[in-house]
């Protein structure tokens, strides 16, 4: 939804998340309409509403049923041979043969290039009741601020390192097919570094739920985009 909104009117989503714009403005109605068309025009497969990102979409993509899947930068980890093989096994493919995956830009569905967005994936915390607090603190500090620790994070291709200037060591990383994968992955990681638009950080759980509701009701045709946007605005206002 955010990706579509970014293509319709760049910057709108963040404004609405902060409360500087309303969720039932024309930009959101158009976003919901484009979303609805994904279903009404048969672009999404039948029964997609009951389909879950994990395990359904993930497993079906990895087992070769679908050519494209919408995930995020964390999926880059599967472009390596080792991780892809493990993921295929987990998805239940016997005799797993890894195949190359590539990142592509979100399609221009609303007239503008869709700006990327992202947050911190998770936070690290130390329990106040921990027995070895000093050791834990030392480890967390090492992992998040030292070059060696951040290099280890970067090389997994799962999270983008927080420390500036750290890049994955591509000499050590084994792509499934370096000829096709290396350039797009490097390009993606370069583009990701300057991203400032948040994903979940500005939205509390109730607003996220309301957005989910709006998405479901428009996709199933239970509400028009205008109605869904109005309901969303009411819920978001109540949740503040």
């Amino acid at each position, binding site marked *: 939804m955010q990706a579509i909104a970014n293509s319709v009117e760049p910057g709108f989503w963040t404004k609405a998340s902060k409360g500087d714009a309303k969720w039932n403005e024309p930009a959101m109605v158009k976003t919901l309409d484009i979303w609805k068309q994904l279903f009404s025009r048969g672009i999404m*497969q*039948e*029964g*997609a*509403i*009951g*389909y*879950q990102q994990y*395990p*359904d979409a993930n497993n079906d993509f990895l087992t070769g049923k679908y050519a494209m899947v919408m995930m995020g930068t964390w999926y880059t980890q599967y472009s390596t041979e080792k991780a892809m093989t493990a993921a295929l096994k987990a998805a239940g493919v016997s005799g797993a043969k890894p195949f190359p995956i590539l990142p592509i830009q979100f399609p221009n569905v609303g007239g503008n290039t869709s700006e990327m967005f992202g947050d911190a994936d998770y936070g690290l915390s130390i329990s106040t009741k921990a027995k070895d607090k000093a050791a834990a603190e030392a480890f967390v500090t090492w992992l998040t601020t030292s070059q060696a620790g951040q290099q280890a994070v970067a090389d997994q291709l799962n999270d983008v390192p927080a420390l500036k200037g750290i890049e994955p060591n591509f000499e050590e990383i084994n792509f499934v097919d370096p000829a096709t994968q290396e350039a797009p992955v490097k390009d993606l990681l370069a583009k990701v570094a300057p991203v400032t638009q948040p994903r979940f950080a500005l939205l509390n*759980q*109730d607003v996220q*739920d309301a957005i989910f*509701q709006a998405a*479901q*009701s428009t996709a*199933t045709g*239970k509400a028009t985009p205008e109605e869904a946007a109005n309901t969303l605005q009411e819920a978001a206002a109540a949740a503040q």
Partner: protein
Amino acid sequence: MAGTSIAERGLREKPAPAAGGGRRSRRLQPQGLHWILPALVLSVGLIYYCIWYTAVISTWDWDGIDPNPERVGAENYIRIAQDPIFWKTIQHTIVFFVVTFVLQTALGLIFAVLLHSKVKLAVVYKVIIFIPVVLAPAITAPVFRQIYAPDGQFNSVLEFFGLGFLAQPWLGQESTALAVIMAVTVWQWTGLTFVLYFAAMGQIDQSLLEAARIDGAGNFRTLIHIIWPGVRGTTLALAILSAIGALKTFDIPYLITVGGPNYATEFLGTYIYRKTIPQSHVGYGAALSIILLVLALVMALILQVRGGEKRVVR
């Protein structure tokens, strides 16, 4: 010996009895009370303490972590009364209870009747019918997700029999998702109904059945007029279990459809979980839990009273 003397001492320490009633109640005081007291305190105390604590939390607006919860009185309950999703869960629970109870009872009874007659390899059939009961929902749910997927085995079977026009995304539509949940539940619990009815039917007096035969009653008549009334106690017990099960149901709807699509398979259990854990509205979830408790007690009472009345009439 020690037990008797303690009891005697207890009796002597009590003040002079009031009218006859007092004397009777003292004699009924179970001697073993002292021995079961620890276990009683633990189980009952813990349960009742937790219920009381939940009732207290239900008057807070709390996220479960904040050391200063906001006290809002009955506001959670008022919001629940106006919550369309809550009423949806009630509606789903009622539909779920009625449909699954009727189907499970009918199927369980039929299987029990069939397997009471002379059938070869009856034990094999009994095992097959009962196995779903012992399978963990965590295991059966992904399998059923696969079966009912738009490209799953259920649609393939329909197409094989030329019923391809019926093939649809069973889990992806609000109209059919609940039906799938009910079907899975009936599949899972019919075995239990069967086993209980099988045992209950074994208790029916053989001479009654023989008399009916002699009087010319056919199979169907015997079923309706002799067997069905004869297993009334089991039916009542199953009704109470089914009602409380319907109120509690969580694993099947959560694992197969996660309460969706669009809350079409949301039940009280899944809604309480959704509100309490991912959304951190612990007070609201607690209020829902209290309502669940009240509903369960009311259901149990109604069913007991109805069952009791029937017994008196007989």
